[in-house]
């Protein structure tokens, strides 16, 4: 069941088109990582998905309700962490969490207390005196305190140190496993995404370039190495080649639509089984954005 849907969504800032006829869905219980270059429209996508921005064209819905007119009940099921925190900086962390808790009947004080302790945040301090990373952690706790069914995080780990990032990723995985929370998070750090996400979506120039399982993606985008000339495989029409490199007799090709049925054909064509190299998500991302 899809808990979030965007159909044919376009969004522009004045004359600058950011989302272009974009289609996007999120199934319940999925952890999805959103990846894209700067200015690709990640933040706009996330904000449009939850009604912070209005679509110019197309429809965005969440929990079956139009995102733009989302009810309070639907909001109670969502947690959101913005890229840039706009806290009430004069508050202490404790006051902020206390204020937020008043608006959620399902606020879990024990869970919040545990997270505050685990993530080592001094909630007695004024927020303005906390470091950027600590403020980010506080924002994440603020968004998770009511155990939302859908958690949306816009570059949540950008200000976190490696240890905090790991702890955060672990928390995301636990949330997903224990409470079946659906999660979307945008990031530039592909290693985090590999650790946490089951699904990935690549956005480029306002359109979803790829959306699907991370494992499937890794199986589809591979590097094929063989001895011989690159022309040997060039006549294979069903092979989507993103890059070819020839090093003397060795040839290396990056293929974006590989499947195991193809292996047999390749073996027959080359006379020997080619070497199939799995790529990291970062390499895949770079290949697809070439």
């Amino acid at each position, binding site marked *: 069941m899809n808990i979030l849907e965007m159909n044919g969504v376009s969004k522009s800032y004045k004359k600058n088109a950011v989302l272009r006829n974009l289609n996007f869905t999120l199934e319940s219980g999925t952890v999805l990582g959103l990846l894209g270059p700067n200015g690709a429209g990640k933040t706009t996508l996330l*904000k449009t998905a*939850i*009604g*912070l*921005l*209005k679509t110019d064209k197309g429809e965005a819905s969440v929990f079956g309700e139009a995102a*733009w*007119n989302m009810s*309070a*009940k639907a*909001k*109670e099921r*969502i*947690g*959101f962490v*913005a890229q840039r*925190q*706009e*806290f*009430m*900086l*004069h*508050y202490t962390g404790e*006051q902020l969490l*206390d*204020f*937020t808790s*008043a*608006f*959620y009947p399902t606020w879990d004080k024990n869970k919040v207390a545990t997270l505050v302790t685990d993530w080592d945040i001094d909630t007695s301090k*004024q927020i*303005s005196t906390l470091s950027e990373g600590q403020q980010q952690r506080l*924002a994440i706790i*603020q968004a998770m305190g009511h155990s939302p069914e859908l958690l949306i995080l816009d570059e949540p780990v950008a200000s976190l140190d490696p240890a905090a990032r790991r702890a955060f990723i672990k928390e995301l995985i636990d949330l997903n496993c224990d409470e079946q929370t659906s999660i979307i998070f945008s990031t530039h750090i592909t290693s985090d995404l590999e650790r946490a996400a089951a699904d990935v979506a690549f956005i480029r120039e306002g359109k979803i370039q790829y959306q699907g399982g991370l494992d499937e993606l890794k199986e589809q985008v591979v590097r094929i190495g063989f001895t011989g000339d690159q022309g040997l495989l060039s006549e294979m029409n069903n092979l989507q080649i993103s890059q070819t490199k020839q090093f003397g007799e060795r040839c290396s090709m990056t293929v974006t639509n590989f499947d195991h049925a193809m292996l047999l054909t390749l073996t027959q064509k080359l006379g020997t089984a080619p070497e199939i190299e799995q790529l990291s998500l970062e390499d895949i991302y770079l290949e697809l954005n070439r």
Partner: protein
Amino acid sequence: MSQYKALIKRDLVRFPAIYTLPYLGILLGMLSGLLTDEGWAILYLAPLVIVRIQSLIQFQHAESNFMLPELKSIEYRYTCALLLSTSLLLAWTQSNSEYTFTNLFLELALLSTAWLWVINTGTREFFYGLIILAAGLNTFAEMTGVGSAFDLLTSWGIPVDSFLSDSTLLLIIASVFILLNLLLPGRIFLAPFEWKKGTLRTEVDSLDPNKAKVTGYSFFQNPIVSSLLNKIDRLFYFMCRKEPFTVPLFYSQITTKCPNVFAFLASIVVGLIIFALPDELNLELIRFMISFGLVIMLLLSTLTTTFVFISQKSFMARLWLLDRSGDRKDYMASLAKTLFLTQLNALLIYSVMALALVTLLPGSPGKYMEIYYISMAWLCALYLVLALTLYVTENHLYSANTRYTILFLYIIVFIAVWLLLLMNTYNAVAIFTLGTIFSIVMLKQWLNADLQLAES
């Protein structure tokens, strides 16, 4: 109910002014013996609404608030309840006055109209100007012995007497008007609206004063009005317009512009009112009102200039890299000069305005004008000290809290000094001398400080 409690707690932390400023106003009124019971009603209502509007506008600029369920409707109901209950409470405490209810109803109507405007346009400065003007008018009517805002209107030849005689009709009309004014902002406020970056946020595009543009300058959308106000505002920078830091630090800041513009406009209105009043009014009192009003405007102007200066600390650090000053001392001197000249400009403008208004009135200027000039000079000297001190003291980094604490302390000190000056003019000389000495010492320290202009 817990949500309402949360909002009250939030306001207690964020806007203690809701509870403190009105009482300060009442205290001042009682001490000076100048305010009648109706006079301080607006002194309570005005700050109350100002801080509420501040809160609502901030709501519109914080995207995380959008996701809090029910916050919008609760915030709206809380504001309406606060306005209505305060008005009724004030009306009850002044039940001996003839026009208590009608006065309060009209004040509330005015405030709610302003609210409608603010919610619709997001221009808080306009609202503040309106509040200052409304509060000034009402207090002015009280203090000059005209009686009430109604009597003031009557003195202008507006026939409100016959209308007032049917108080039931007036109350019905006022009630419907208030109801509409509370419901209409609600419709706008509660409708879904798109989160966008603060419309009042300013960004400086260029350091060249001739090419400087400010993005997000949305004070008035109308280009003619906007251009007119910009021209008026330029008056306040005539001495330091060509300083390299004027544009990025002061001239382009909406927060600095607004008090000046409104001070100017409000003074014109006050001037017009004075000349429309009957001759038998106490001219000494009018002079007092003018000097008091102008000092308040100067207070606002210098405070915002000082805050902008302090809040631009990191920006100044970046400018150091771009600046063509010979050395660090030149750079620091240039900054201090800009600050000083901006303050001095405001002082001169207000002095000219005060002089023009007072000399146009028959009779001698009197003691109030002397006090006015001395207190203005004192303010200028001390604000310079304040700004430079805060800037050089690493332990007093600018923050919202610092700002409010300073604001609060300064208002108290300012009122105390003003009352002191009223009692004895000679005190003013001592205070002014002290302020000037502090300024010079601080300026020297500033120029010799081996500052680390790191971002903080």
